[in-house]
């Protein structure tokens, strides 16, 4: 039987480690494509400054990349170490995209990142550019497969329960990979990475412009970043809307939590711009509403409605009652696999099996579940509204502010006016944490909103965890927090140091040099270890 403290600690550990990992991933996704774009310019026009630009941002990319790789290992371990029932219950479906991610994406990314660093002198220009593109392609493909896996948790498709093996099994690979949630989420998340990369480059460039250092590099980097960024931000917002639209149909409880929608209402439904949700009383305090906006946002029509918490709880209670016989039948089938009566009973109720598991938390013997236990489990079917509600609003607000920022940045940059707008350059520096935060709260919306399920409607979170002692969990949590703290200090220190130091300038401060001035080719650097240092 599961110890709920262990379940909670396992959730904390997963959240802490994944949020930490997700500080580095979006930057990798975005910066890898920016590097490819910068290097493309270098290969096309042959100006050395673009090589320096690529190499400088490449150096920062690697400091970030190392920690992304390191903390990604944790994620792969953790499904098995801490969510073992989850892993065996849906591993038949969930494991496949993870393995494919390794085969298709990680190898590409990791093999070519080595070539990217060490290959400058060993590869022809075009070859090196291709290598950089492979790194970008690899990191984006890895986002694709992990988000296909994640989408199975949000909107389980392409799988059915097999009572003989007592687990979910793949029934259609196509349905798994072409789920609407997966498509919208992949584009939304990877483009969010591009936004992160763009603000990172724009912010650091702005700092150089403020200080009057490396002006040529900073001006060019800034322009490329903001052009990339404005398109990306528009894309994130569009796809975020699409994701909300898909999610509204497939995860009604998440949507109700995001919108603080306690009571079902007739169309057109108002949108809660600001509200203070109260989970216990199931009401919002001090709400500020925009009439009709919710119908428009989530159904793309003024006549559309979505169910509120009241209606969803009733549905959940109904499904729990229907799921209880499924759990009972399954228990019989576990010891007598050939029992035809139990199988027939299971088939009749199997679509609500997950709901049967939901009440098993309170009634280990589900056949004795009381009305009170069923209501309690039905209440569990609604996620914590306040954190989902506020994370969502924060994410959207940050998204819109970044869009405004990029639009202005593009205007200033194209008017060659950016260096005079010192307030804007300062703002650009301060914008740097925003996309990282937006990504983090975006994760919170998606995953807190999915509760109480690990696989929506199929497998409750409380059952998914491994059966550990609390002591083990404390040991691992302390270990992770300790190690990760040391790592982030080292990373930030090296990152800030590399930024302060700026690009390599073996010829002295050459900001005054014209970019197209002829340069010496240092032939003594033909050895293997040239890394980034030549020019």
């Amino acid at each position, binding site marked *: 039987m599961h110890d709920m403290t262990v379940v909670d600690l396992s959730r904390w550990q997963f959240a802490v480690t994944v949020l930490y990992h997700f500080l580095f991933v979006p930057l990798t996704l975005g910066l890898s494509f920016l590097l490819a774009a910068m290097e493309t310019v270098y290969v096309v026009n042959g100006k050395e400054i673009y090589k320096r630009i690529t190499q400088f941002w490449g150096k920062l990319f690697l400091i970030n990349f190392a920690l992304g790789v390191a903390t990604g290992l944790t994620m792969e371990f953790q499904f098995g*170490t801490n969510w*073992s029932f989850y892993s065996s219950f849906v591993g038949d479906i969930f494991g496949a995209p993870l393995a494919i991610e390794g085969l298709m994406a990680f190898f590409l990314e990791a093999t070519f990142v080595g070539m990217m660093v060490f290959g400058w002198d060993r590869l022809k220009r075009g070859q090196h550019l291709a290598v950089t593109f492979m790194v970008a392609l690899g990191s984006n493909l890895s986002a694709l497969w992990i988000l296909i896996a994640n989408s199975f948790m949000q909107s389980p498709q392409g799988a059915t329960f097999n009572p003989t093996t007592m687990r979910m099994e793949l029934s259609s690979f196509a349905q798994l990979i072409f789920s609407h949630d997966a498509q919208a989420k992949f584009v939304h998340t990877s483009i969010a990475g591009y936004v992160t990369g763009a603000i990172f480059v724009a912010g650091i460039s702005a700092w150089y412009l403020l200080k009057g250092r490396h002006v040529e590099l900073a001006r060019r980097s800034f322009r490329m970043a903001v052009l990339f960024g404005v398109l990306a931000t528009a894309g994130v917002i569009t796809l975020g809307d699409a994701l909300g639209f898909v999610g509204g149909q497939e995860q009604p409880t998440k949507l109700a939590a995001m919108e603080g929608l306690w009571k079902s209402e007739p169309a057109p439904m108002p949108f809660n711009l600001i509200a203070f949700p109260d989970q216990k009383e199931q009401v919002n305090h001090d709400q500020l509403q925009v009439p009709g906006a919710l119908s428009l946002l989530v159904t793309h029509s003024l006549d559309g409605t979505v169910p509120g918490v009241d209606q969803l709880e009733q549905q959940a209670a109904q499904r729990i009652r229907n799921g209880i016989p499924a759990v009972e039948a399954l228990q019989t089938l576990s010891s007598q696999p050939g029992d035809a009566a139990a199988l027939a009973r299971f088939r009749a109720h199997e679509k609500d099996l997950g709901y049967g598991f939901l009440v098993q938390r309170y009634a280990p013997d589900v056949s004795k579940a009381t009305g009170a236990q069923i209501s309690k489990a039905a209440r569990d079917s609604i996620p914590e509204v306040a954190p989902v509600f506020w994370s969502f609003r924060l994410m959207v607000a940050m998204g819109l502010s970044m869009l405004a920022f990029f639009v202005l940045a593009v205007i200033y940059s194209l008017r060659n006016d950016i260096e005079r707008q010192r307030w804007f350059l300062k703002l650009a520096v301060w914008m740097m944490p925003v996309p990282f935060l937006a990504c983090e709260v975006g994760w919170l919306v998606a995953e807190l909103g999915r509760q109480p399920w690990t696989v929506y409607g199929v497998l409750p979170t409380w059952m998914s965890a491994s059966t550990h002692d609390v002591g083990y969990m404390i040991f691992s949590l302390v270990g992770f927090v300790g190690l990760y703290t040391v790592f982030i200090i080292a990373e930030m220190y090296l990152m800030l140091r590399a930024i302060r130091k700026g690009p390599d300038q073996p010829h002295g401060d050459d900001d005054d040099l014209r970019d197209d001035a002829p340069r010496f080719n240092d032939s003594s650097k033909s050895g293997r270890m040239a890394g980034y240092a030549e020019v």
Partner: protein
Amino acid sequence: MEIYAVFQIIWWLLLGVLLSALAVMVGMDMGVGTILRYVGRTDLERRVALNIIGPHWEGNQVWFVLGGGAVFAAFPLIYATAFSGFYVVMLLLLWSMIMRPLGFEYRSKLPSVAWRNTWDWSLFISGLVPMVVFGAAFGNLFEGVPFHFSWNLTSTYTGSFLALFNPFAILCGLLSASLSVFMGSVTVMNGAEGAIYDRARILARTAPVLAIVLFAVGGFWVHGMQGYALTSSPGAGVAQTPLQQGVALTDGAWFTNFHTHSLLWLLPGLGFAGMLLGLLAAVARRSHLAWWLGALAWVGVIGTAGVALFPFLLPSSSVPAQSLTVWNSSSSRLTLTWMVGFAAVFVPLILWYTSWAFYVMRGKVKAEHVAADEHAY
């Protein structure tokens, strides 16, 4: 034979291939990490050693990631049971492994001696600990691991953390570490010159001797051990859970497969031959040849362990009847089929571009280049 059983066996073989690739490719980098402070006496020498694997360690490490992903996809019940059961060991493995990327990437970014020493030691730990754990995990498979399942296949591990480091497991851990040190030393020989080369060669002559002794002792040890045998089972290629079989423990049962199919003796033969000839090649300064022989030794050792255990993957010492086998822990036929397809396309592709990367970076690493380049590892 059922087509499902064919796919189960293909995946069992693929698992062997992936674990061997992991042992060879990751093991060589970890070996370099383990011997770093011995082969490199000065900072520059250590940087030379690190830069030999510098362009490749990242790609090599993916074999490890893929190994985990493949077990998850093809044998989810093994992944779930082993990773949660070996909790503390898995965390030590993980924590030592996540120091590695930082060790490579951050070590030479600051001039401070204390900073570099710290990362050198972290590379030592992240080289040695995972390889010992890797071998020790195999050792525990032979002895069985105390776990059982509830009616809905929730697994519970009932052993202690320290029990995983019993004498036989430690022997297997040392075997794995010594093979990794051998591969690490010949890799350094491939890429270095002078004093570094000479020190690496000393290790390349010592490690295989140790490995040969440990492999032989391990064989005798397993012969005297109680092995597992299926007495009843729904059979290969039949959908089932681990709750439906009978298992008996008998002395020497881990040798049954070798007695039934005498051709299988070629596998331990390959292990011994690889180690012995690898040793001779290292003595003869044929380090590239020694590397390939070391890789064959790994294939022989892992193959030997795999066929000895077959069809078992994770025997349970507390409830032997609930032991996990190829037949009761694999994914469904559809998943296995898709995954065979993906592996058939991508593994050759990976081998192709990995070889290209090694080809591009061939040759010796010169100390003066490392010194001139503050951005090398």
